[in-house]
């Protein structure tokens, strides 16, 4: 791409009697790529550190702490620092893996199979271990055989649904990663 001296800067320097040849030649040889910065919040704990994510053609090229965010002022913990890998690592799982009880092997399964299997096992376990009344005869409608663990990546609306569903199933052991 040809760069000419017909710019405001080039025009001014030309009028000052400056030979811009080397600068123009170097500018012409420049290869650049266009990137953007977006601010966002770390998806992990409740501190809510600010991030700046740099992207190029919609691919993440950098993640860093936002120095202007009042909470972290540019710093990040080790989990936040590794967010770049969450977005880009080639070791991220991209297929559903299933290890059968007492098996040492992982096998690839489809989403449809996996979700149906999870639903079947929740139903089987709940049916087998559901307690309508405790040993004092009080109605409890619960099961101790299933526990649930939410994650910091769930947003408020997802957490609400998560809590509703688990309690509707009769779970008592309902936890969330943000409490840890």
């Amino acid at each position: 791409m040809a760069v000419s001296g017909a710019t405001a800067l080039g025009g001014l320097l030309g009028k000052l009697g400056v030979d811009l040849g080397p600068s123009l030649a170097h500018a012409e040889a420049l290869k650049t790529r266009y990137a953007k910065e977006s601010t966002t919040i770390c998806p992990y704990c409740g501190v809510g550190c600010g991030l700046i994510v740099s992207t190029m053609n919609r691919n993440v090229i950098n993640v860093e702490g936002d120095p202007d965010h009042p909470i972290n002022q540019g710093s990040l913990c080790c989990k936040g620092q590794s967010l770049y890998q969450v977005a880009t690592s080639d070791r991220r799982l991209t297929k559903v893996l299933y290890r059968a009880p007492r098996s040492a092997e992982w096998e690839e399964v489809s989403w449809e199979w996996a979700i149906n299997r999870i639903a079947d096992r929740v139903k089987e376990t709940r049916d087998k271990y559901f307690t309508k009344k405790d040993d004092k005869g009080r109605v409890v409608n619960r099961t101790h055989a299933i526990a649930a663990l939410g994650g910091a990546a769930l947003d408020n609306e997802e957490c609400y649904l998560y809590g509703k569903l688990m309690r509707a199933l009769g779970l008592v052991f309902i936890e969330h990663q943000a409490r840890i």
Partner: protein
Amino acid sequence: MPQDRFDGLEQRPGVSPDVIALERRLYGWRRETADRIGATYPDPLPAPAQVDGARRGSEPLASLINPAPDGALLRDAADSFLDALDGLPVAQVLAEGLGDPPDAERLSRWFTLAWTPDGAELKRLAEECSLEADVLRWSARQLARPFFHRLGELLVGGEGMASRPPDAAGCPSCGGAPRMARYERDEGRRHLWCDLCNLQWTFPRVTCPFCLNRNQERLGYLVIEGSEQYRIDVCEECHGYLRAIDERGRPEGSQVDFPIEDVGTLHLGLFAEQQGYQPGENHRLDG
């Protein structure tokens, strides 16, 4: 900025020897003028409350005081400035246009063009003097630099760096647009630099320093392949560009010398302007 640093510039690709030669002259003149100014400028000194106010970013210092030096000091500086350019075509053009020597009123107007955004006055004086407006403004800023460097020193005092509120654009000393920026090594904070005042101040990232646009879809930056320590921040709203240095792409312990980098990265400015972007000062000028 020792003279020997200019030698390093000559080794950098894309740097015009003519630009280095011009900057050597101007640098030498600025040092001599700063010595001559000494403690006589500004007179009177700004009141502590004024300096404090400008430090906190309420108004630039130059708008709280009268930054014009007294007539004799300004005349002396103008004469030596034109002498420093002696031999260059622009010296004769300026002398003919402004008058040799320029009268006091014209001198004062010429100086004021360095930092005020009055585009109408720039055009007026340029027409009166039969000078190109960009040459007139460039010469005014060069003339004013030793004086505004002194204002910048007063503003920073012992505190290292000035600041401005995140909703204020412009240098805390003169109110002008930044010329370059750097991203600091430790936490990636962005610091802007004014060439007129040789002053740095902290400014939020992901915000246009010229028009204060914060729409992240309309802000971007150009990565320079093979020179990742440099980038060009751009705004698609005002089409302003700002050359920047990312210290995180530099060896540990290296310091950013802005006057040297200003000369050493001129080619990035040429490239940006060819892409349709413009320097911040153009955005600031009204009329």
